[in-house]
């Protein structure tokens, strides 16, 4: 999953970024709304973490503009505004969830997972594909009852497929999900990760669509 974090507090932002990265997600962190607009114009994000009080404007206005453009990206508000009326306003503006500062990083991870699952159309964190049992909440995969160990990158890639079962992802799209702007992408990185995933999870799980990209087999 590629996540956009919009947070102007550097101490909190750094901790949130590290937490998301440790979960195996890719995160782009911006501190201003204009930078957030630029980032969203260039990249398709799977989720946005939005602070409400930013140096160059209110997060609510930004969220309304995003929804007014018809973008369906999940948005979780992270805010110091603790009043229930602020929360209702945020939810009415189109937020999917709302976290009042200070929050537990573990709770943030759980909510990101929950919102992402809701968007993929299956809120159940347990998914069965062929002989695989996948627990999205715990980020665990077992094959035929035996635990499979995935690296953070492999998990992130696999999760991208799980979020849109059957959808074909191009190599560029997968690179987008795996790497933040500043990370260097090796030319054959995606192919390498896919081949490792097939080795661990079974060759049939990820199909190659020639000339188009890759997709998860129907579950």
């Amino acid at each position, binding site marked *: 999953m590629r996540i956009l974090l919009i947070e102007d*507090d*550097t*101490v*909190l*932002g*750094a*901790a*949130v970024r*590290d*937490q998301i990265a*440790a979960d195996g997600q890719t995160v782009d962190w911006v501190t201003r709304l204009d930078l957030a607009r630029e980032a969203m114009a260039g990249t398709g994000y799977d989720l946005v973490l939005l602070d409400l*009080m930013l140096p160059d404007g209110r997060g609510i206005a930004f969220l309304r503009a995003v929804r007014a453009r018809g973008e369906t990206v999940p948005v979780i508000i992270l805010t*110091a*505004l*603790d*009043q*229930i*009326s602020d*929360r*209702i306003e945020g939810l009415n503006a189109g937020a999917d969830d709302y976290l*009042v*500062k*200070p*929050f*537990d*990083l*573990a*709770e943030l991870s759980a909510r990101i997972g929950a919102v992402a699952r809701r968007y993929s159309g299956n809120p159940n964190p347990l998914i069965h594909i062929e002989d695989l049992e996948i627990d999205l909440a715990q980020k665990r995969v077992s094959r035929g009852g035996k635990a499979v160990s995935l690296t953070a990158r492999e998990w992130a890639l696999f999760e991208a497929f799980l979020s849109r079962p059957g959808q074909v992802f191009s190599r560029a799209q997968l690179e987008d999900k795996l790497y933040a702007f500043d990370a260097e992408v090796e030319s054959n990185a995606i192919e390498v990760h896919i081949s490792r995933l097939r080795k661990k999870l079974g060759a049939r799980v990820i199909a190659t669509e020639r000339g188009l990209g890759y997709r998860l087999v129907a579950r």
Partner: protein
Amino acid sequence: MRRLTSLQARLGLTLGVALTALWLAAGSLTALILRGEMNQVFDAALKETSDRILPLAVIDIISRAEAEEPGVQRLATAREGDEFFTYILRDETGALLMQSHNAEPSAFPAWQGPGFSEDATYRFYSDFALKGTVRITVAEPLAHRAEVAREIQMGLLAPLLLVLPLALAAVAVGVRLSLGAVRRFRAALSARGPRDFSPLPEAGLPAEIAPLASALNGVLARLEAAFAAERSFAANAAHELRTPLAGAIAQAQRLRAETADPAAAARAGEIEAVLKRLTRFAERLMQLARAEGGRIRRAEAADLRPVLRLVAEDVARAGGEGRVSLDLPSAPVRGDIDPDALAILTRNLLENALRHGAEGRPVGLTLTPAGALSVTNDGAPVPPEVLARLTTRFERGAAEAEGSGLGLAIVAAIAEGAGGALTLRSPIPGAAGGFCAEVRLPVQPG
């Protein structure tokens, strides 16, 4: 004497006393002037009588002297009866020559020369003729004059007795009517709620009171601004405190996750715990500032249920997983309590119940259609003396329990501001134990 504090009574009394005094003074003065005039008229009549009688008497005496008829003569009068005037005629020795038939010669003073004189009972006029050999004195009883004077005074006083009460009543009614606007103003002021800072209507107030009203409205506006500033300060303080605390807590959590050293992880955990306690305490202080400073009621009513649902969901997610059971009516319950204030109140009650209630037992949040919001939990009954102290600031139910001790004080402040009341009961009526906090919120019927 009790001082008159009512403007209406003061005005009525002053006007009434002044009116009465002026009227009495005017009447007395009129009576005095009339009396002087009357005396002149009476004196003129007295002298006229003497002037009329004297020549006739002289002729009579002379003719009698010629006829040599001795004795006192009485001048014939038209008819017998009461006379206003009596007279006597005497010679220069004082011997009686003639008298009116009712005259009492002993009542007449000795000759003192012509002119007016007076004793205790009579007013006299004396004159003489024939070189002082015939002297007349006419007497008029003073009682007669006094009676006339009394009649005049009565004539002036009688209408006064009738008109004065009417005038006083008119004064009272007039004062009351004039002060009606002031009374309505006062009623409007005393009828408003403790957090109502809307301006008072100034229209229709007398010019003397209107500046007071507008000054009061100015004070109300400044108060409202001060409360709004306090509110926005609380909101800003929340932001200024929450964000750095969130950063510090998150960093501590990352440290704990990233370090391989168990001792360092434990320290990070301790830092995190302290920061969280600090967060809760700051939060309670800001809630208290909001509860006591802000506006707890809104202009329009809204359904209270969504707020309760959000709070219950939140509290359940933050540690009370599966322990909060929500019981809401199926129809909207509309109240004018500020949703933020209601959320603070409910959250405090729920967190209290989760913290102090029996481990693992459910906590109930119930709202009735009549606006009774109650939070209940299981547990040993709270002793009555502890129950009574619970809403005092910084008071904890049990010394070892974690908490700021501000929760119930905040709840009580919000309940009061909303026009409700907080009732604490333990054990729950009809049960052996447990704790029930109930707030009756004003709700709109229907």
